[in-house]
């Protein structure tokens, strides 16, 4: 019985609560019994131990409260709720990357749909569902599942990720041993207006392996996604996602990465709409000469309902000559709110680290706002780290320049917004992928060009 296991975990938690390490920020409150008591975790399987540990972490940490340091700008209420409010569903399914040669893996409301997906076959890559992997005793996933998430809980608590590890039934388990000949594309579809999707993917790239992972679409009224990425020396992961929300959708995602020597993790996320979205990215650089680039472009229009988007990034340099970049651009209108909390931590001995962070918001009206908290914490003396954050409006001179050439105002605004997000898009190395992202962005901008409060629609 699931309930029994959880209660057991809670009892253990009470015994060990006093032992919680004091360097965990925001993790000391007693857990609100309500939601946690109703959680159901899968039993048995090779990940059972990891799930028990995750549940224990969760109960120790408790769900976040608005006063927790990392939840000051984003109210956790909607994520804490027992169930999401149902959303309105339109029948538009994602079209991005559909002309590319790729392995298509379809999830409907967070559940894998084998019939709609391509066969799970790709040279140099083993793809399994979490369920399949879980059922195999001694599967390698047991050594990764939940471990990167657990490591990412210090020094900042991320309770929803622990909740995910404890309860996720769905997800993909991908092992890459060579250079994948084509991208793996995860497509999310939604059919159930009240779906509360919990997905947990595990990616393990062996030495020198190379994979491009694409993600598009949206699932459910509320999502809680975790991706754990373990990169062996010289492995390379290119992750490109376009996350779309209904105006009333609530979404939470975490990426936990571990990057070994000379490996490279590059992730770009385009986010459109969604009433409350939070993306947390936690990357540990553990080997020398490793690279971690994370970037995001966010377009938010509060016309159809509240828009709140939070990017919370934590990159730890624990080895020499690591290079990290955080490039985030948010375009906000009609009362939309953007949040950026980005940190670079350079541990003692991580000499010659090159860390870069930029977060910028373009506010298209006076009702929108951007809240930024850039942080650097450096314990090595021979490093190069820089950060910057800006908030501004459209440049009136540039707008005049374009219009004076005959470009209509609405179109000129679109061009200037594209110009603003260009730096984030440039983080997508592949020309074809970048062009599709750019087209998607432009389509959204054109649809939202004349939106005003309470009249606009979703893209």
């Amino acid at each position, binding site marked *: 019985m699931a309930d029994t296991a959880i209660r057991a975990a809670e009892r253990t938690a009470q015994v060990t609560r006093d032992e919680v390490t004091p360097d965990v920020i925001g993790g000391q409150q007693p857990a609100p019994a309500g939601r946690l008591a109703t959680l159901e975790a899968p039993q048995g399987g090779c990940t059972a131990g990891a799930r028990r540990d995750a549940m224990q972490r969760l109960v120790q940490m408790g769900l976040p409260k608005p006063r927790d340091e990392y939840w000051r700008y984003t109210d956790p209420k909607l994520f804490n709720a027992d169930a999401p409010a149902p959303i309105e569903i339109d029948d538009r399914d994602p079209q991005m990357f559909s002309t590319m040669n790729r392995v298509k893996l379809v999830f409907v409301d967070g559940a894998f749909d084998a019939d709609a997906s391509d066969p799970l076959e790709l040279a140099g890559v083993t793809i399994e569902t979490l369920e399949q992997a879980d059922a195999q005793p001694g599967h390698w996933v047991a050594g990764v599942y939940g471990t990167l998430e657990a490591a990412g809980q210090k020094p900042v608590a991320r309770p929803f990720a622990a909740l995910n590890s404890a309860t996720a039934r769905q997800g993909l388990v991908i092992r890459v041993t060579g250079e994948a000949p084509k991208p793996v594309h995860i497509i999310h579809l939604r059919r159930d207006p009240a779906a509360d999707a919990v997905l947990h993917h595990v990616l393990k790239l062996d030495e020198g392996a190379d994979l491009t992972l694409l993600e598009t679409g949206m699932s459910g009224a509320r999502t809680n996604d975790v991706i754990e990425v373990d990169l062996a020396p010289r492995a390379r992961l290119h992750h490109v996602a376009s996350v779309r929300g209904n105006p009333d959708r609530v979404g939470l995602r975490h990426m936990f990465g571990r990057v070994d020597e000379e490996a490279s993790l590059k992730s770009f996320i385009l986010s459109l709409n969604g009433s409350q979205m939070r993306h947390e990215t936690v990357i540990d650089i553990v080997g020398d000469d490793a690279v971690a680039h994370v970037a995001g472009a966010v377009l938010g229009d509060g016309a159809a309902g509240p828009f709140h988007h939070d990017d919370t990034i934590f990159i730890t340099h624990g080895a020499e000559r690591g290079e990290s970049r955080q490039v985030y651009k948010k375009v906000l209108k009609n009362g939309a709110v953007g949040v950026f909390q980005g940190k670079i931590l350079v541990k003692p001995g991580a000499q010659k680290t090159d860390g870069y962070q930029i977060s910028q918001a373009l506010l298209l009206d006076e009702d929108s706002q951007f809240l930024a908290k850039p942080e650097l914490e450096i314990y090595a003396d021979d490093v190069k780290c820089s950060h910057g954050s800006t908030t501004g409006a459209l440049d009136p001179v540039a707008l*005049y*320049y374009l*219009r*004076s050439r*005959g*470009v209509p105002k609405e179109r000129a605004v679109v061009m200037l917004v594209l*110009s603003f997000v*260009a*730096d984030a*898009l440039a983080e997508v190395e592949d020309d074809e992928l970048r062009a599709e992202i750019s087209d998607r962005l432009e389509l959204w901008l054109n649809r939202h060009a004349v939106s005003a409060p309470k009249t606009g629609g979703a893209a």
Partner: protein
Amino acid sequence: MLEVTNLQVKLEEEDKQILKGVTLTIPAGEVHAIMGPNGSGKSTLSYVLSGRDGYEVTEGGATLDGADILDMEPEERAAAGLFLAFQYPVEIPGVGNMTFLRTAVNAQRKARGEEELSSGDFLRLVREKAKALDIDAEMLKRPVNVGFSGGEKKRNEILQMAMLEPRMCIMDETDSGLDVDAMRLVADGVNALRSPDRSFLVITHYQRLLDHIRPDVVHIMSDGRIVRTGGPELALEVEQNGYGDLLSEEGA
């Protein structure tokens, strides 16, 4: 073609009168130059005519081919045939020069009810015009004006002018920041565009540019007014004696 009548303009944000009654007629096919000391209102005149924000017309008006342009949006003025070559062309990172040009050309064609140029036709046209201005393919691919030298930016302005084929071209200190060779290129570009149904208003501090772009009429502007109008010899007079003598002569 361009008819400016007693144009009086103040800054929107402060109570400062910049133009104090400018009257100017530029017939089709003519090249007029406006010279004048710093702060005389030359650039303001070009901004007000092309529709930049921040100015308030308190009196007078301006028409292009009889149509009141001051009521139009900047893009409507452009579609009506007005073009301003900027003194400081704006850099737009992330937007390709080619995309920008094509958007502008087709937006104007659309506004005038003409068919948009196909990408093939556009490409042919832009290559041909770019070649004459010594603008290479690399410059066309780069983001608008980003990393361009002063001369490249000005040549890019003339390329836009050549592509858009406006009826009324205003050039705001296009010679500033140009070396002799670049100035010749720019002037050649402008001269190639001279035609009986196209007019130019060339704003400049120096007579030098006017050696290359020969004006039909020269106006001297001072303190928000046109204080003298004459032939090309007026520019030479400025070059030799400066504005001081000329203005005191006028009692301005």
